[in-house]
């Protein structure tokens, strides 16, 4: 292609970083128009990681090397919150401003930063390429970092030849100052153990904080790779049958039967088939997949190998959110070790089956957890959801049949294969089988991931997490994440099963249980949820692109006491906006952007209180 490029060159350092990124990623299966394009996001991330922003020279070099038209590459680069086209300091601290952290004091941290370190680095005045903030360090507010059990949280990136990235929990002003100053050792809080670590009833979490996550031998000694061995014994059809018999439902939020998905992919005659593990985990309040990936990475690699075997996938991707550096490190290590022992690659365990996989890092976009947006993101296009049909099982990544599953869904497959589908189906309830991971955060004594068989009630889970501290009363509980619903103390006996929450018009979503006690002001939480959806909308369709703005504005008017035509009018306007987003948006983001607000208003009567003020 004859590309018109910018008149700018990369530095030697930028060029080397980009070259390394491109070479290190295999391009299995990607052919034709996709052959180079799929390297675009990794190349942009490499340039960003080297100097802390993407210069015109680095950008130019990427476009030329990968033969991507600059206007298209620019559209991709500006889609992601972790990439920036304006000069920026090499060290950046992202401070979580999302709801779980807000409930645990992040506003104070952010106010302190505004006071002492100036404005956040996202505002670039017009076309001037000026460095915002100090020379070496900049800060940004961040959406949920997936560390809500250790709220408040922060994420630090330090650009360089060996870029450093780290997540920090239990952040205090002093730890934040240490992170801003680059002394990361002083920014670390003591590590927290899994609350249920070593518990005999655990299935998905049984190895967490018990087995060394970096050692393949330790994993095997703890029963690792027995499931894959059994899968090879019984054959792919029997694996799919077991998964179908287990009645396993997807844990990523949409609760789709996994067996049906796998069967559909296995049947496709078009080749190759791809497997994607959705590890984008960005739903506010969700951190269960991180806990698995950081602490039991081999389990994910083994279950993906089984999934690939069952569905006939030649190649797999783990699409991992960009803010999970430890998960990235642990998974990368697991992949290398598994490959070295013939557990990935050609002829795995002498079975004749070949499969390999790689990690693709996201770059700050919640929407890239939507399954079709992931395809576009991997292919090197903007992470905009696609119109369905066609469905992923027919036409997914690189327009080939694709099986895509959540991390927790996949890890369930190990026990299903080891003990058989019918045995798995006996755990839990009739319609919700197996165990479920719940992410408890906010005002509970011991926040963290908890595993229980389906059937436990909301009250059981909150009790498991030690209840609400200081004997305070519960004001509200957010179930399922920002895309979920608020319920109240009257709902504590709701069984947390798919059928149980449905009967109460709630949702399990991604397993979020965020508790707010009676000291919390809920309106600012709703405003933050609205701001989140506005920030994370891909902008493709009108109902979501503009609806999320109008919804946030209505809440701002209510909060400022500047209601247009009174509170009832504002509420009916919100309802009208919400209905259009739900009915006419392309994807789940817009369709659920009013869900939590609607439940706070109509279920908890939140804005009713506002009228009295």
């Amino acid at each position: 292609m004859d590309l018109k490029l910018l008149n700018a060159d990369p530095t030697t350092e930028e060029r080397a970083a980009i070259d390394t990124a491109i070479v290190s990623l295999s391009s299995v299966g990607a052919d034709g128009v996709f052959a180079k394009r799929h390297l675009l996001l990794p190349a942009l991330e490499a340039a960003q990681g080297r100097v802390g922003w993407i210069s015109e020279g680095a950008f130019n070099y990427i476009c030329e090397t990968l033969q991507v038209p600059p206007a298209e590459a620019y559209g991709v680069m500006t889609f992601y919150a972790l990439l920036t086209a304006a000069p920026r300091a090499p060290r950046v601290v992202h401070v979580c401003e999302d709801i779980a952290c807000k409930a645990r004091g992040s506003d104070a941290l952010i106010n302190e930063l505004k006071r002492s370190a100036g404005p956040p680095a996202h505002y670039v005045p017009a076309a001037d390429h000026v460095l915002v903030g100090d020379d070496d360090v900049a800060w940004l507010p961040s959406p949920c970092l997936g560390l809500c059990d250790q709220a408040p949280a922060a994420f630090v990136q330090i650009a360089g030849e060996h870029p450093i990235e780290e997540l920090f929990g239990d952040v205090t002003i002093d730890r934040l100052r240490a992170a801003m100053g680059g002394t990361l050792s002083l920014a670390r809080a003591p590590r927290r153990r899994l609350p249920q670590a070593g518990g005999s009833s655990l299935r998905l979490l049984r190895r967490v904080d018990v087995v060394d996550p970096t050692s393949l031998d330790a994993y095997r000694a703890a029963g690792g790779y027995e499931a894959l061995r059994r899968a090879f014994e019984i054959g792919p059809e029997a694996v799919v049958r077991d998964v179908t018999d287990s009645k396993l439902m997807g844990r990523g939020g949409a609760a789709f039967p996994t067996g049906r998905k796998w069967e559909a992919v296995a049947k496709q005659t078009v080749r190759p088939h791809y497997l994607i593990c959705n590890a984008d985990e960005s739903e506010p309040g969700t951190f269960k997949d991180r806990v698995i990936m950081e602490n039991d990475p081999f389990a994910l690699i083994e279950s993906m190998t089984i999934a690939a075997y069952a569905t006939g996938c030649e190649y797999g991707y783990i699409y991992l959110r960009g803010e999970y550096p430890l998960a990235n490190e642990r998974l990368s290590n697991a992949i290398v070790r598994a490959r070295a022992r013939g557990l990935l690659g050609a002829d795995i365990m002498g079975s004749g089956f070949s499969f390999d996989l790689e990690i693709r890092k996201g770059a700050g976009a919640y929407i890239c957890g939507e399954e079709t947006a992931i395809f576009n993101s991997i292919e090197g296009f903007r992470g905009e959801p696609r119109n369905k049909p066609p469905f992923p099982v027919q036409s997914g990544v690189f327009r080939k049949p694709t099986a895509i599953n959540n991390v927790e869904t996949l890890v369930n497959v190990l026990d299903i294969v080891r003990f058989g589908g019918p045995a798995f189906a006996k755990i839990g309830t009739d319609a919700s089988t197996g165990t479920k991971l719940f992410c408890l955060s906010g005002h509970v004594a011991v926040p963290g991931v908890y595993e229980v068989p389906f059937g436990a009630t909301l009250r059981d889970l909150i009790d498991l997490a030690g209840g609400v501290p200081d004997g305070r009363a519960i004001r509200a509980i957010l179930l399922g994440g920002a895309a979920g619903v608020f319920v109240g103390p009257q709902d504590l006996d709701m069984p947390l099963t798919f059928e149980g929450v449905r009967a109460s018009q709630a949702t399990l979503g991604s397993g979020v249980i965020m508790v707010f006690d009676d000291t919390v002001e809920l309106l600012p939480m709703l405003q933050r949820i609205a701001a989140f959806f506005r920030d994370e909308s891909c902008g493709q369709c009108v109902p979501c692109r503009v609806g999320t703005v109008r919804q946030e504005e209505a809440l701002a008017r209510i909060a400022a006491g500047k209601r247009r035509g009174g509170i009832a009018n504002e509420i009916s306007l919100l309802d009208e906006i919400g209905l259009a987003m739900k009915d006419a948006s392309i994807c789940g983001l817009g369709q659920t952007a009013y869900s939590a607000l609607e439940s706070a208003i109509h279920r908890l009567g939140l804005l009713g209180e506002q009228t009295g003020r």
Partner: protein
Amino acid sequence: MIAILPPTAPARMVELEIDGVEVGALEGSTILDACRANAKQIPTLCFLDTLHPVNVCRICVVEVEGSRVLVPSCARKVEPGMKVRTDSERVRHSRKMVLEFLDSSVDLSTTPDVADWKTAYGCDSERYGPPALPAPAAERDHAHAGHHEPPDPDHRATVAQPVKIDNSLYVRAYAKCILCYKCVEACGTDFQNSFAIGVAGRGFAARISTEFAVELPQSACVYCGNCIAVCPTGALMAKPEWDKRSDGTWDESRQTQTDTICPYCGVGCTLTLHVQDNEILKATSPFDQTVTSGNLCIKGRFGWQYVQNRREDEPSA
């Protein structure tokens, strides 16, 4: 190039129900096709026969029995036994809201049909409050994904911003842009393969942009003007039309449209010349013309400007 080829196998007929009436439609055609063939009026904005459907504006949504959400009629294919409602309460509500969302954030003054639709669907864009002041030049071009300034309780956000005039042939008034993606498709794989523009940013800050928002003369633009031809809102406009509209002398009642064959090369593209007071103001090509599908090159689209300008310049030269 014609973007959408007709199905090759002889198409079969599909029976479906539209607003309670049984109709037949060709297999592979869309609900919109079926509606139009049966004289049902469906508003569309991002749809154009000659481009791949992107189904982003959502004004064409209809209700399909059994579907949890509404579906875009411009992209959804007909299926046997489908029961479609084109004017239900839900459909009317979403259309009204889409129109209000656009009308309250974008200048739709040069978008055809909008005034009628607003009346038909009972839109009231003022209920979102008075509009904020236009953004300073280039501010929207540099918005960082994932962040925005907190909303202003006294004003509604809009995409208002100064027009971009960086060449003598056409202007880009993104205050009128509804982000329908048509220009990007026309400039890219659907027609032109120049890829001079793309969608940048995300959410409400999403925008049509060149790389790093460079001016058009620095971009890959070849001034074919095919983006202007497909733009439904007048955000992209030939310079003479923009100038005439700006000084209030644009008057369609005084204009004639004359078809001619482009004189520049042997392809034989049909040119429609829009003339007011003996002055050519723009050149288009009919979308249903087989040679062009509405597309031209810089010579056909803008060549007359040079001719005209030279002639006008002569006396003073």
